[in-house]
């Protein structure tokens, strides 16, 4: 099995440990992640999608054609990239008029959208194409952690188009994937709420975004979690860097470390905090790691 690996922006350019963990995980699963050479930003739905649909669809379609040329389905581990690429792929497959228009643009760079690839999310591939059993077999160090799972928005919604879960407001996919590592997913108030970063709000009005994030952090803290698990580098950045922004604005002292699902698997497979670039994140992960790996007991 081969997969066209779409990197996006924030993961490779801010949290490369997520990319590293993913590459090691898929090597262990014996699945080849092929680079989509020359891929660009998905592009960001908050700006391109909100400013000009045609530009958004054209650049997204260019990325899609890279995977079409490779004859592979796309995997992304960013909800924003997933939302953008999935939606553009879906739209251009369904709407002939828009497809014609976009292909007119793409013909100028010698490309054509054919509609032969599928866009999948990392978590979806892990559950549907690989299966829980195979993933469990890779876990070397069961993690003693209570975690707050954050689904994010563009991973499951809109349900009627994406269909990964039938009921996006009460999903189980991530909780199940997280618990394969031995970590326990703790329920918390308004678990499905947005982190606050999307739709261009973070770049436009950081106070509003921070207010969302604070509400999430309050609810997570009350549930008594050791870490936050996400499947989106943008949410990841919002909970990591955004947590310091919340602390600055509200005088709080939140310090809940943030792991992308791929990093969580990396930990359970025995990778170090340095390999996962956890040591470069804003929120110190050391206390959670000590607990997770039972180093306190040693």
């Amino acid at each position, binding site marked *: 099995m081969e997969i066209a690996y779409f990197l996006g922006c924030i993961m*490779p350019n801010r949290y490369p440990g997520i990319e*590293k963990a993913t590459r090691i995980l898929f090597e262990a699963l014996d699945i080849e992640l092929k680079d989509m*050479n020359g891929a660009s*930003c998905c592009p960001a739905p908050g700006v391109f999608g909100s400013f000009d*649909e045609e530009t958004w669809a054209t650049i997204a379609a260019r990325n899609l054609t890279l995977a079409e040329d490779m004859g592979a389905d796309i995997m992304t581990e960013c909800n924003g990239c997933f939302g953008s690429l999935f939606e553009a792929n879906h739209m251009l497959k369904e709407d002939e008029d828009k497809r014609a228009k976009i292909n007119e643009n793409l013909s100028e760079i010698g490309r054509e959208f054919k509609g032969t690839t599928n866009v999948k999310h990392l978590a979806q591939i892990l559950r549907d194409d690989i299966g829980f059993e195979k993933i469990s077999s890779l876990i070397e160090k069961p993690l003693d952690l209570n975690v707050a799972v954050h689904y994010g928005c563009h991973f499951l919604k809109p349900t009627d188009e994406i269909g990964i879960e039938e009921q996006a407001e009460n999903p189980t996919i991530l909780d199940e994937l997280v618990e394969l590592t031995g970590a326990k997913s703790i329920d918390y108030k308004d678990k499905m709420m947005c982190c606050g970063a999307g739709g261009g709000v973070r*770049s436009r009005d950081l106070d509003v975004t921070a207010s969302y994030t604070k509400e999430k952090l309050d609810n997570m803290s009350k549930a008594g979690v050791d870490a936050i698990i996400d499947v989106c580098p943008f949410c990841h950045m919002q909970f990591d860097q955004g947590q310091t922004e919340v602390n600055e604005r509200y005088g709080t002292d939140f310090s809940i470390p943030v792991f992308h699902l791929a990093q969580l698997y990396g930990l359970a497979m025995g990778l170090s905090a340095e390999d996962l670039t956890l040591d470069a994140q804003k929120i110190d992960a050391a206390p959670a790691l000590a607990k997770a790996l039972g180093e306190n007991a040693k």
Partner: protein
Amino acid sequence: MKIRGVFSMSIINRLKSLFKEEKDFEEKDVQEEISKDVNSESSDFDDTVVSGTKTSVPISDVLKKEKSSTATIELKFKKEVRSIEEESVEETLPIIEEDEPSNNEEIPKEAEEDLAEESLDVEENTSSDEEDVNTDDEVESTEKVDEDKKEKENKERDNMTLLTDKELLTDANRDPEFTAEFIDAGIETVKHCFQCGTCGGGCPSGRRTPYKVRQIVRKCLLGLKEDVITDDALWMCTTCYTCQERCPRSVKIVEIIKKARNVAAHAGYMAKPHKMTGVFVINTGHGVPINDAAKALRTKIGLSEVPATTHADAGALEEVQKLCKLTAFDELIGYDEATGGLKE
């Protein structure tokens, strides 16, 4: 909202039996009629029985006198409700006759205009209307009446209401071409909205910003272009899809918001930080480009110094730049090719 839905349906059922029409009520018919019914009902309610802000005397009197007797209140209230239902039916009759022959008929202009004014009018009172109808729970009603009294007292200081004389909307505020943009973009579901408010009820942005998603959808349908595109609140949506997931009419709400933003952007309403993200993509292919710290991190953990994206492929970057020119995205954001920044 639930109560209102039941109401509307019961009216429709009554109409059905009146006309002995057994044929299916197509989405559009139901939608149009419901919105009319809801509309006439809510205005009746406001003026006569329910709304505490205007003439709440009937309910509060009854409640004061017979605090312990829920049954009596219920009876009395039901009676009033019934009379309203009958009024509504009468009012609705001519509309039905008009609409029955053609399923595709648009909402008549003057009715639409009424909707414009009244839907804004209802804005502040929606939740209280709905809760007040609930006579099953005496305590709740009593609390509500108290709340309404307080609300009445605070009314003079209330600068949140949208209904002020200077803001009265007329046909002159409407731009049918604006509405047509949504339909042309394939978002026909904008017409299906019956203003129930489920969207706003679940909206995390509405809890902290002036973003009123239900009202924006209404304004888009009515063609209140200037209102929509000049309002900064339009940009307070994180596109989390909670509204769209919960919409009982399957309205593509997030698509509506994004389309409205497209129109706003093309009319020049764009925030500088957003334009800058566009600049980054034109310059590097990435909205969040690599930096030295990330290069060092990548190298340290054994990844290529830069990812195999446009960062590592000048030809690929040129393709992206060409596409941005082709769609005039560079002009839209005011990109200055000479400086690689913004013109302004």
